[in-house]
């Protein structure tokens, strides 16, 4: 039998954990968008030296697990004098991971803008910066929105490993409660429900946007 009294009792714990998950997730995602944009622009404009660093960063970020990144930051870095709170570690880790994914999304958007757009911006007297801001970037961003939303879902899912650096997120709460009360079914069901509440809306928005982008364009 499902123990509703138990569910009612632990619900506030899950709510608090969900808020933490979402909050850290949003912070990390915002940061990763900034990192991604900067990296994509560096690659697109082929800025020497910086470009190499960005390429290395993207490879490292995409080919290491978030959990390992977090362990290194949380347990390893203090040994050389860099002590970070679990929250900072979580957000920084998510941004480090997400930055490369966002950079790829931005870059494919930038690549999809035809060269003639840049040239006609130049021929209208715009400089590089103006051409980027007013002509290329707006088009690039709108084509990368589906990839963007997919990344957001991916990153929100990745926050589930935050429990490993003792952040009291949804996973932490569920595991804790399973250990404490042996109410496995209820604890796991709540875990699934809460993740669905966070992820389903983004996923639905993603599906709708993708259809709109595919079938229409500007001014539709």
């Amino acid at each position: 039998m499902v123990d509703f009294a138990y569910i009612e009792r632990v619900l506030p714990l899950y709510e608090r954990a969900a808020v933490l998950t979402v909050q850290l997730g949003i912070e990390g995602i915002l940061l990763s968008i900034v990192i991604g944009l900067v990296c994509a622009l560096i690659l697109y404009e082929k800025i020497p030296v910086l470009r190499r660093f960005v390429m290395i960063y993207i490879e490292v970020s995409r080919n290491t697990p978030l959990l390992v990144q977090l362990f290194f930051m949380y347990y390893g870095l203090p040994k050389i004098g860099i002590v970070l709170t679990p929250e900072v570690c979580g957000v920084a880790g998510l941004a480090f991971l997400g930055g490369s994914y966002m950079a790829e999304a931005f870059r494919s958007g930038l690549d999809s803008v035809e060269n003639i757009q840049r040239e006609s911006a130049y021929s209208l007297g715009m400089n590089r910066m103006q051409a980027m801001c007013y002509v290329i970037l707006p088009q690039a961003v709108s084509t990368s929105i589906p990839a963007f939303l997919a990344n957001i879902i991916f990153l929100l899912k990745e926050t589930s490993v935050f429990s490993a650096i003792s952040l009291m997120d949804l996973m932490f709460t569920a595991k804790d409660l399973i250990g404490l009360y042996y109410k496995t079914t209820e604890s796991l069901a709540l875990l699934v429900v809460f993740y669905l509440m966070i992820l389903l809306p983004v996923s639905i928005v993603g599906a709708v946007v993708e259809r709109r982008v595919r079938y229409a364009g500007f001014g539709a």
Partner: protein
Amino acid sequence: MPDLGLEVLMKGNNLLRLFDGLWIAVEISLLSIVISIPLGILLGILMTRKNRLVRFLTKFYLEFIRIMPQLVLLFLVFFGTTRSMGWNLPGETAAVIVFVMWGTAEMGDLVRSALLSIPGHQYESGKALGLSRRQTYFYIILPQTLRRLIPVSINLITRMIKTTSLILMIGVVEVLKVGQQIIEANRMVSPNAAFGVFLVIFILYFVICWSVSMTARYLERKWS
């Protein structure tokens, strides 16, 4: 020069133990992908069926697997089965089950879109040659889709290897756990071991995943 805690790794067979831990991760990924490929092909074929119920169920399965964090799936299988079925699954088995579920879903979706992208006249010409439905799939359709699947399945392997880091959380002794054990055992003699050990694990993961994804990229370019 600050103590970076690297000397611990030179002690005894510590480095070797880390490699062993990582090998478990690779093994689990490889085993899972090998099981996922045939199951994924089956799922992909099911997903192209006209039957609405079949389509709904397969789609539901795919979306559920996709939207849930892998760690949640691991918890569901690891803790859930103990409770509801009374099994006491070892963490490794739970991990393989979850990775197969995940791999089958991803592979199934890839197979589905690959199948749909094969023009209808390929099916018709199979029929015209007097092949049965199964023969058409086996001799004509699948060989065309398989080649496209290889780079993406290699990609899936990297994602799985990265995800194996999570099985620490269901008690499997893998590279991170071995790392923690080494750090614990040497707490007195080298207090800074955490830096060196986790740095090395970071690099090990990178080397493995990076070389696998380079292979995938190479194959993609070669076969596209």
